[in-house]
């Protein structure tokens, strides 16, 4: 908590007031349909550029007989999915054969707790 005698308290109050006022004023501006239209137009332009760039790059990589980032990411995702599927099969096998799970069995507290009596 700020010291009541701290001379910097004045600036802290000012900062708080500036923050509240700015949030309110700029917030109102951000809620206008003009801002929404402007922001979304900018997003659309950026997305179009991104798409054009992506298409160019894909064509270039295909011509150079190289995998695209998407293809590499998809390979990685496939490997991870395979890993997870194996883990699920392993867990099912353990459950089906009545074996013990790999994780160490920890002592389990009894599920008998009651709320403390009210004073």
């Amino acid at each position: 908590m700020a010291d009541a005698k701290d001379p910097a308290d004045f600036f802290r109050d000012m900062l708080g007031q500036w923050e509240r006022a700015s949030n309110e004023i700029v917030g109102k501006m951000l809620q206008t349909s003009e801002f929404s239209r402007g922001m979304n137009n900018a997003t659309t332009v950026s997305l179009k550029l991104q798409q054009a760039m992506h298409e160019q790059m894909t064509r270039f990589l295909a011509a150079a007989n190289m995998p695209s980032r998407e293809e590499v990411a998809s390979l990685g995702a496939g490997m991870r999915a395979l890993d997870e599927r194996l883990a699920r099969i392993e867990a099912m096998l353990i459950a089906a054969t009545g074996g013990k799970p790999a994780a160490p069995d920890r002592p389990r507290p009894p599920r008998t707790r009651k709320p403390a009596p009210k004073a």
Partner: protein
Amino acid sequence: MAAAPPNLQLLEQMRGLVDRTLQRNIKGLEYFASPAPALGATPKDVLLTRGTLNLYHYRPLADEIYRVPILLVMATTNRGYILDMAPGQSFVEFLLRQGYDVFMMDWSPPRADEKHLRIEDYVLDFIPECLERVRTVTGEPDVTLVGYCFGGVLSTIYTALHADGPVKNLVTFTTPVDFTQMPMFQAWSDPRYFDVDRLVDTLGNVPPDLIFASFDMLRPAQRIAGNIRLWDHMWNDEFVKSYRMFDRWATDALPLAGEYFRQTTKELMWKNGLLHRSLQIGGRTVDIGAIAMPFLHVVAEHDHIIPYGASKPLVQMVGSTDKEEVVLKGGHISLVAGGNAIKRLWPRLDLWLQERSL
């Protein structure tokens, strides 16, 4: 005792100022040189990892626990460690010490091949699978479901569709149902200007920068003022520690699965399908009135992300006879974590859960 002469007071104040300025410089250097704080460190076992979904089981910290386990459902936009900050400031740790058996559904960034995930996948696949795991691990037929923010929306949709399911109690924190009451998000997703199809078709998954920027724009001056406050309090280790924890979490937004984002925008933001009971999930209409189990909704008085108006109708719509809405001081994040939560939400929730966890 007589007060110190004015000259001495001024000298003391000047000494304090100089001392803090020196401390700011020293600690400011430490700030940039030191690593980010370790968060989400309460010991746990990972029971399930399936693409974006992770299911954790936290190790008990009490000798005797309540019968009914708790499954926390984290919001899909952010990491679950907001509910498990540093020791002594962790909601999960608090629940464990109070004698609850705690599980959490947390999210990793959806992979490129998960861009097709829809609300159906979360509600009809992920939540049921995790509930089944919890029941198997604990041997208990009942579970308390606790959802935070959009995790609350998913929990609400699930329980509305499975009113006779294994969920014994439903708790939601800051959960929106009336999306027209979120004016900023409404303006930015105005269907006249916002081409959600183009966005999703181009990007696949919605990048975290976009999610972070939209949260940040809700309070445009907050980041600048926050940085000035950080410099002002740089001498105060506790303040800096807390700032770093929350800042790290806030900037650690997750991407959203593309179809899930498209569906949320069209069905919830545009059509307000939860409030109008028009949302169709798996060919069934989601009627919140079907929820009949004990229900608690906790909302924050100064929530700038989910304003009170957006979450207010939830408790009225739920069909339960045992239902309650609690409005607590604080904001969207300080409701669940930090000093405010320790003082207000956590003990209040514990009190509500005790009798219903037997």
